């Protein structure tokens, strides 16, 4: 007899027996929306929630699959897009006069790299972001700390800073050019201004939102003002401050693009300007891709810093040791 037949006959037998007792469950289950097949009354239903009695080759393979997936899956869309793009270009569906093929862009990048222009412009742009962002973020942090920690300074500065914040800093570009010409200063000042306010606002907000219970605790444990700031207020405000920094870095790149496009003699933005005049669409697209990579890389770095500094935080904790 086949196993399935054995089971079938057993079920039939139990059904017969249970008909006599008519348990409530059997009649109630259709109303509860349970679908076929109904377990017969009296028949025990086993649901395996987990079974790790035999850690199998299968589960290990699944773990391998998982790490492979988290590594490879994020690349699927960009690479797929690249292939589709190349395909559309080479088959002529999309004219390379409108959008150059990825291979053309690669060639353009190689040509520029051979002449050393590409490296030079990238380094120049990186340097500008680094200097401008450092000045702006540091300023935002210091102002934020001063305003967040000292109430008189809050009263003195906060309203003015909030007013300046509402001015789109890019609106100052013409003024900057008039004041400073097209030298290095206007770009650095603009990048710094763009980075300052996100850090400032998040620092002040982070300090204001520190759990008052922890501050009360610190005071009742005899912490002085400086120790209270160092041991409790700053660590508690660290997460919003880092969020502000991440956001500020994005603004820094955005500002740099505008700054370099309008008035510049070098940098990635200058590359774009020059390419526009020479009708080199491939270089324009190359520059856009460079910006994307730069933005992605700087975000990656800040995320790594976040994970290190906030490793005690439930959202970042992947290891528990201090």
């Amino acid at each position, binding site marked *: 007899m086949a196993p399935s037949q054995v089971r079938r006959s057993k079920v039939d037998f139990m059904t017969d027996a249970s008909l006599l007792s008519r348990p409530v469950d059997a009649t109630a289950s259709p109303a509860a929306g349970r679908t076929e097949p109904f377990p017969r009354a009296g028949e025990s239903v086993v649901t395996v929630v987990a079974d790790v009695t035999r850690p199998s080759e299968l589960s290990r393979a699944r773990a391998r699959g998982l790490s492979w997936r988290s590594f490879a899956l994020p690349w699927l869309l960009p690479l797929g897009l690249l292939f589709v793009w190349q395909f559309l270009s080479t088959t002529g569906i999309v004219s390379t006069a409108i959008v150059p093929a990825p291979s053309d862009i690669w060639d353009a990048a190689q040509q520029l790299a051979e002449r050393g222009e590409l490296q030079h412009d990238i380094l120049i742009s990186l340097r500008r972001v680094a200097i401008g962002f450092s000045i702006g973020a540091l300023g935002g942090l210091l102002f934020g700390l001063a305003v967040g920690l000292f109430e008189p300074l809050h009263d003195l500065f906060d309203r003015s800073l909030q007013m300046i914040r509402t001015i789109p800093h890019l609106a100052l570009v013409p003024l900057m050019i008039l004041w400073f010409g097209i030298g290095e200063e206007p770009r650095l000042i603009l990048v710094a201004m763009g980075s300052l306010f996100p850090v400032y606002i998040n620092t002040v907000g982070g300090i204001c939102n520190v759990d008052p*219970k*922890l501050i*009360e*605790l*610190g005071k*009742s*444990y*005899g*912490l002085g003002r400086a*120790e209270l700031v160092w*041991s*409790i207020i700053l*660590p*508690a405000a*660290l997460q919003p401050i880092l969020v502000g920094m991440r956001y500020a870095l994005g603004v820094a790149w955005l500002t740099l693009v505008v700054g370099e496009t309008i008035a510049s003699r070098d940098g990635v933005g200058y590359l774009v300007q020059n390419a526009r005049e020479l009708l080199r669409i491939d270089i324009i697209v190359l520059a856009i891709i460079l910006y994307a990579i730069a933005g992605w890389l700087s975000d990656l770095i800040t995320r790594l810093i976040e994970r290190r500094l906030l*490793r*005690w*935080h*439930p959202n970042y*904790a992947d290891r*528990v*040791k*201090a």
Partner: protein
Amino acid sequence: MSGASVSLRSVGKSFAGRTVLDDVDLDIAAGQFVSIIGPSGAGKSTLLRLVAGLDAPSGGRIELRATGRKADVRMMFQEDRLLPWRSVLRNVLLGIKGRKQDAGRILDAVGLQGRESEFPIGLSGGQRQRVALARALIHEPDLLLLDEPFGALDAITRAAMQLLLEQLLVARPRTVVLVTHDVEEALLLSDRVLLVKDGGIARDLIFDQPRPRHRGDPALATLKEELLDGLLTAERDLAAVA
């Protein structure tokens, strides 16, 4: 007797016109373990916070007296209030320079040896309160104030923490004021139980049963019934007002 003595003279506290405590007089002898019970909202925690100096009374005078030094007061809250960015050891050492060995010893005493370098995020609720207890005790306080510190713990962990607290106090006696909603906890641990209601102390009960005490003890059970009755009438009165 080690520990600080506490005296309150006509102490009152009101929040925004609502009187929580009214003309409270209270003396706590050095080394006494006092529990404060009462219906919720009766001002138990307010009384404790006044003694801790966390809030200022609206009127009256509060004095602490210790021998040889200014009374050191430490408070344990219902929430553990651990600093999540500090390791267990550094949480215990909050406000202290050096003394790592003392901290290690006191963590051993509360059963957390080997966990010094972990962040609080990896600890259970009971373990976190043990760290908070260690953080309070490392100061060798003359007066230990406990604001429902075990209230959020499960029954078994709570019993373990009560036992631990009792052992630590036998080793190093000091004055303790415990606010609790658990009458049994109050009777297990304290020399004296205060029932706070209607802004004042409604009952003041000396309970000198020998230790260690047991939950099944008939004297304890009788008193528990009596106090629970008192609490229930108080709750009924509050409900009638509301």
